[in-house]
């Protein structure tokens, strides 16, 4: 097949053979990776600006209004447009796949990806057109500061965020409605049984009974462990959406009153109290749903790759419950630099409870590694490679955050590049995305009806460029942070240019890796196939029938 033919038609991809569930999954995946490209370009622009006068970009990118509007859009596009979209797509496919039940509503799944796409687009437009730039933290009263920002920009931005959150509620409803549907294997289960399993209480009772020498509470839990993780993580997703939407409504009320010519007094909202409220919710993403979803994904991938039962499954179930409780109590580590924050909250929530994340994530890492180890020898497939990459990412990123979640360290590290690069970017780019790439390689044949990947060489190039680039960018950025470089500050005079040049080189590797990955995917499904994904499915089936056990066969050495 010629290159042009391949580009148009792909390898053996036939979009007409896909059912409704497969198509809606792929639509969200496509949007997610397009947003990923946008976020990588934005990141590279900011990195280039930090290089200083030698950077080849037009001067406008160094103007503060422009630079900080990019910095505002960057996490919205990255976290919601790309990551949420990809995770939601994967889970709305996986829950029916693992429970062997149909998705509650394919229409709702379509609504979810559309709302998140529109919402992300609106937030991006608000930053691009009106240079609305309060950053994603929305520290009060900055988002309502109409002396610095155009009113209309603020309103469009908040409407965008609201669309994303409404889409998020759609995802939550779809997931729980699917889990609680009493059909198929759950036909005879009660809601109580599903709830007990969903919260991992059965795992705890099993452990408790084992300690007392009694029979297990439940030999065969109602829900598979990865579904439990999705169930548990989605609790945090809900709470987080409520808080972000609540903050959005507050900002919108102030902006609308301003628009009406009767501005409200911003001082009536206590900035520190608001910050506590907002960080409680926002932290449910970083220290809640991400960690729980990731732990669940590791367990799923380890069991799918090995075809064996998860090592210490009851402990894993109980740990997920612990992780949920921990995630509700750790937000104060974001306020260690706020002197009005009570010292006890800094000490207990900010330091001690936060340190538990070392335990919960360390446990997830251990259980995953032992499950893989017990099944060796394994073939070094792409999914296994990416899973190991994901483990490295979190192995690096979690301690980097724990180090800073300390009153002594925070005094000299808060708001520096350390936390955003050595922790956040390594956790997201290396830890989370490599886990998601692993899931993508596992699910690829199932979601695309055994479409052959165009080039395994390109898959490998993508892996190494991405791994080295991701770790390198985080490491050099983190070093700049140790040398005093602030994270939310404009440096255009080349103050930290050695680190920034090295970080930019590594960032370019991540960007090139994304382009290679996208090219490989387009060559596999073809442009016709890519368009076909967005055409209505002829087969309305909302479930997928392949048994998970078949995946393990491909990973056996």
């Amino acid at each position, binding site marked *: 097949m010629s290159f042009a033919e391949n580009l148009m038609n792909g390898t053996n991809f036939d979009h007409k053979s896909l059912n409704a569930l497969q198509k809606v999954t792929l639509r969200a995946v496509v949007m997610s990776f397009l947003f990923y490209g946008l976020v990588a370009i934005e990141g590279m622009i900011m990195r280039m600006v930090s290089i200083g006068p030698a950077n080849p970009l037009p001067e406008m990118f160094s103007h503060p209004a422009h630079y900080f509007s990019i910095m505002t859009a960057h996490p919205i596009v990255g976290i919601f447009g790309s990551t949420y979209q990809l995770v939601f797509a994967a889970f709305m496919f996986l829950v029916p796949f693992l429970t062997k039940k149909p998705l509650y509503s394919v229409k709702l799944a379509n609504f979810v990806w559309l709302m998140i796409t529109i919402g992300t687009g609106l937030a991006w437009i608000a930053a691009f057109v009106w240079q609305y730039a309060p950053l994603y933290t929305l520290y009060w009263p900055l988002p309502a500061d109409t002396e610095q920002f155009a009113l209309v920009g603020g309103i469009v931005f908040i409407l965008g965020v609201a669309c994303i959150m409404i889409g998020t509620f759609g995802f939550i409803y779809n997931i729980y409605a699917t889990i609680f549907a009493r059909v198929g294997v759950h036909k005879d289960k009660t809601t109580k049984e599903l709830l007990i399993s969903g919260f991992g209480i059965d795992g705890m009772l099993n452990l408790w009974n084992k300690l007392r020498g009694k029979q297990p509470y439940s030999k065969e839990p109602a829900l598979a462990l990865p579904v439990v993780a999705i169930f548990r993580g989605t609790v945090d997703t809900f709470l987080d959406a409520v808080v972000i939407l609540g903050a959005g409504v507050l900002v919108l009320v102030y902006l609308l009153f301003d628009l009406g010519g009767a501005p409200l007094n911003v001082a009536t909202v206590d900035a520190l109290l608001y910050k506590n409220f907002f960080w409680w919710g926002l932290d449910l993403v970083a220290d809640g749903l991400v960690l729980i979803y990731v732990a669940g994904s590791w367990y799923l991938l380890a069991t799918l790759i090995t075809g064996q039962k998860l090592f210490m499954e009851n402990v894993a179930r109980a740990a997920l419950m612990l992780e949920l409780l921990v995630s509700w109590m750790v937000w104060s580590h974001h306020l260690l630099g706020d002197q009005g924050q009570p010292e006890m909250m800094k000490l207990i929530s900010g330091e001690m409870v936060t340190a538990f994340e070392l*335990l919960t994530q360390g446990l997830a890492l251990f259980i995953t590694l032992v499950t893989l180890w017990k099944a*060796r*020898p394994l073939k070094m497939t792409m999914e296994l490679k990416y899973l190991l990459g994901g483990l490295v990412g979190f192995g690096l990123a979690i301690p980097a955050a724990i180090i800073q979640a300390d009153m002594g360290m925070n005094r000299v590290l808060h708001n520096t590049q350390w936390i955003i690069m050595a922790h956040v970017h390594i956790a997201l780019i290396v830890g989370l995305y490599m886990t998601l790439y692993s899931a993508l390689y596992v699910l690829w044949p199932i979601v695309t009806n055994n479409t052959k990947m165009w080039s395994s060489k390109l898959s490998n190039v993508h892996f190494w460029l991405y791994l080295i680039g991701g770790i390198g960018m985080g*490491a050099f950025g983190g070093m700049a942070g140790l040398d005093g470089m602030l994270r939310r500050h404009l440096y255009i005079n080349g103050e930290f240019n050695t680190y920034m040049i090295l970080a930019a080189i590594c960032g370019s590797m991540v960007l090139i890796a994304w382009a290679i990955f996208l090219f490989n995917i387009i060559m596999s499904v073809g442009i016709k196939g890519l368009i076909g994904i967005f055409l209505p499915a002829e087969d309305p089936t909302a479930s997928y029938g392949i048994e998970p056990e078949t995946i393990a066969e491909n990973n056996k050495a």
Partner: protein
Amino acid sequence: MTFTNSVELLAFHNVAYTIYAVIIISVIAWFGYNLTRENKAKSVVRIPFYTYIAFLVAGGVGHHIFTYNTIPWVSEDITRHEAIPDATYHFEIAKHQWKLPQDKITIQCGEQVMFDVVSHDLMYGFGLFRQDGTMVMQMQVNPGSRNDLLWTFLHNGVFDLTSTEYSGPAQYSHDGKTDLMRVKKYIEIVGCKEGGGK
């Protein structure tokens, strides 16, 4: 062991974290290599599960115990409400402009000073930076709540003051070349020995 300023602390931290990073990457690489081998690798060391858990708990808690005992500004910060500082400096911020207590501040080595900052509009930061760009310390400055930081300087130096928290693009000149909140060489510490201390 005591860290007397951020340079010493972060240099130690840099080395410790780099060693850790090399170890974790190597362990996963070794693990990945052995996952694929037909001949099963012998464990280099057997770590019982509960020892591993104890290690994680000790790491999480021990880190804070270590920093509390080696970083002097931790206990100073927690008990600052009971302290009687040698000097207190009051700062105010409104519309991205500082209202400074005096033209320049000179502090004697070992003096315990309180920085008390009030914001009249937005959330800012209060940070001191050495001439090589490294950070001495910082705090957040919230409008409507108390922002006070007690500090003892144990090394000579000349520090710039700026806001460490983003408060909108108005902090900078239009071309981005100037941080309008940066007050150059505002604080000078004198009277310390060469290696630090009085």
